[in-house]
């Protein structure tokens, strides 16, 4: 970020009266930065660095750490659960896009068209976001119960009841539905602001030129919010690739590892098997994969612009 304000400072300092020594001039500047540098180092960079080191060690809190070379990585690659968790995480990311990603876009456009009660619809959509996660776990366990309200509705319609949480085919879908319900409101607010800031005369002009409603949405509304769509898409992919808390709290990775995500497996390696070294190795591998994807994406978007 460029600083347009550098010029006045320089000219002030150039006043001939008192040329301050360089270190006193910037003393306060560095003093202000010092706490953040220390904190970032201690609580972000040090763990990151330690993670790389730990991935080559066997960590033992009692007897002390011992160097084991590539053993942790070998163990991780031989573990079939790792591949299951990779598959589940990809499945979770895809489901998140299929079930959840389009919902806030659709509702943002619909709500922006409302002539009345727009504010009310917006607040209602955002409301679940204010509810603590732990409450959601209790609530949705009851909603998804085999004899809960959703199944009551399904059986009333005449379908078979669904074991939302304990059926392997449904458990991941149930989690994604719950998370979409909880969090689409925040994305909705961002889309809605973008949709409402589109100049009205664009639609006016399109209408005069004979463009129908769908054409107006396709050629005006969606292109106008393209930036938000791309940004939130990337943010959602990043967030879902790290997800594990809901899977842990609702099902602990079950049934039969159907909701075991990669991050949950990392946590399981560390706190169930007490194997902090292999857990760190899994963390490093995730960093490498995501870093590689980021580089590829960066290259591709640069090529497109060139």
């Amino acid at each position, binding site marked *: 970020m460029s600083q347009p*304000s550098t010029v006045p400072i320089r000219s002030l300092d150039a006043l001939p009266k008192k040329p301050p020594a360089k270190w006193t001039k910037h003393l306060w500047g560095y003093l202000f930065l010092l706490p953040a540098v220390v904190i970032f180092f201690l609580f972000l960079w040090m763990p990151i660095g330690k993670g790389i080191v730990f991935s080559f060690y066997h960590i033992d809190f009692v007897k002390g750490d011992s160097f084991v070379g590539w053993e942790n990585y070998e163990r991780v690659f031989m573990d079939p659960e790792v591949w299951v968790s990779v598959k589940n995480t990809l499945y979770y990311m895809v489901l998140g896009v299929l079930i959840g990603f389009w919902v806030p876009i659709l509702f943002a456009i619909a709500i922006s068209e409302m002539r009345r009660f727009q504010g009310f619809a917006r607040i209602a959509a955002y409301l679940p976001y204010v509810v603590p996660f732990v409450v959601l776990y209790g609530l949705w366990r009851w909603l998804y119960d085999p004899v809960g309200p959703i199944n009551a509705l399904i059986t009333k319609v005449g379908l078979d009841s669904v074991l939302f949480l304990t059926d392997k085919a449904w458990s991941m879908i149930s989690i994604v539905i719950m998370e979409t319900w909880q969090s689409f409101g925040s994305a909705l607010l961002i889309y809605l602001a973008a949709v409402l800031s589109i100049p009205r005369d664009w639609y006016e002009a399109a209408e005069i030129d004979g463009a129908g409603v769908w054409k107006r949405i396709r050629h005006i509304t969606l292109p106008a919010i393209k930036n938000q769509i791309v940004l939130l898409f990337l943010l959602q992919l990043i967030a879902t690739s790290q997800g594990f808390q809901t899977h842990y709290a609702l099902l602990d990775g079950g049934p039969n590892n159907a909701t075991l995500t990669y991050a949950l497996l990392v*946590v399981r390696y560390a706190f169930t098997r007490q194997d902090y070294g292999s857990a760190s190795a899994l963390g490093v591998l995730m960093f490498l994969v995501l870093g590689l994807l980021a580089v590829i994406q960066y290259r591709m978007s640069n090529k497109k612009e060139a």
Partner: protein
Amino acid sequence: MKTIDRGILSDYDLKKPGNKIIYYLMMVVVLAMVCTMLYPMFVILFNGLKLNTEVNSFPPTFLPSEVHFENYQKAWSYIKLPLFARNTLFIFAGNMVMTVLVVGFASFSLSRMNVPYKKVIQYFFLLTLFIPPTTYIIPNFVNLRDLGLMNSFWALWLPAGANAFFLLLLKSFFDGINMEMFESGRIDGASEPRLFFQIAFPLSVPIFATLAIFVFSSAWNDWYWPSLILSSDDKYPLATAIYKYVINVRRLDLNLRFAILSMITFPPVIVFLIFQKYIVRGLHLGGVKG
């Protein structure tokens, strides 16, 4: 919100029957969405007022057939909510102080004090955004253990200052403050901390209010990480305590469970409904720039 004379559809469009059907269909979909949003909210409230047998009945009822306020009394004595709420507020207050002092000072320096090697320092902070949390969650735990911070609020307070996202938000806000104010302050002989506390901080109240919302909602919501670091009742925040003693317990009656859940759901919901105008505006301020 400004009045809308037209959206994608104009008034003329709405007179055409085809469009009219689409419009009303859309409204029905939105209405259905609103209902699915509100229904679980009322479920939490009403299930807390039912008899346990009614919560477990099939098909489930929506309104309680008889109201049992004594559930709340029982729920209140089941779990020490005031203690856990106090811990949550402690954590929030400490995190907020760290955010203002550490992140605020640093972003002020980066934005307004023009120190040499500023770019390098900035990268030192911002590169942390590119490292996935899964990578350092376990080493972070071991690191805090090595530093001897286990079961202490400091294990949550100190790392609260290491937030590159907040740093970015604050810095871009400070960048927008008029430079001349600081110049005149400097000429009048104000020290740099004074410039921060008497000019930058008061002018940045909106962005600090937004950060306060973020910090509060994470203090109120986070249950997993505190459950790893803290290990005694006099330290657990509300969310962790609820997870440990309400969600993860099989024996507790469902109606009491919902009574407790409604007690911790409705305070933030009510605060949100009262201040929603400011909160939504603030979130927007934070969301768009981030």
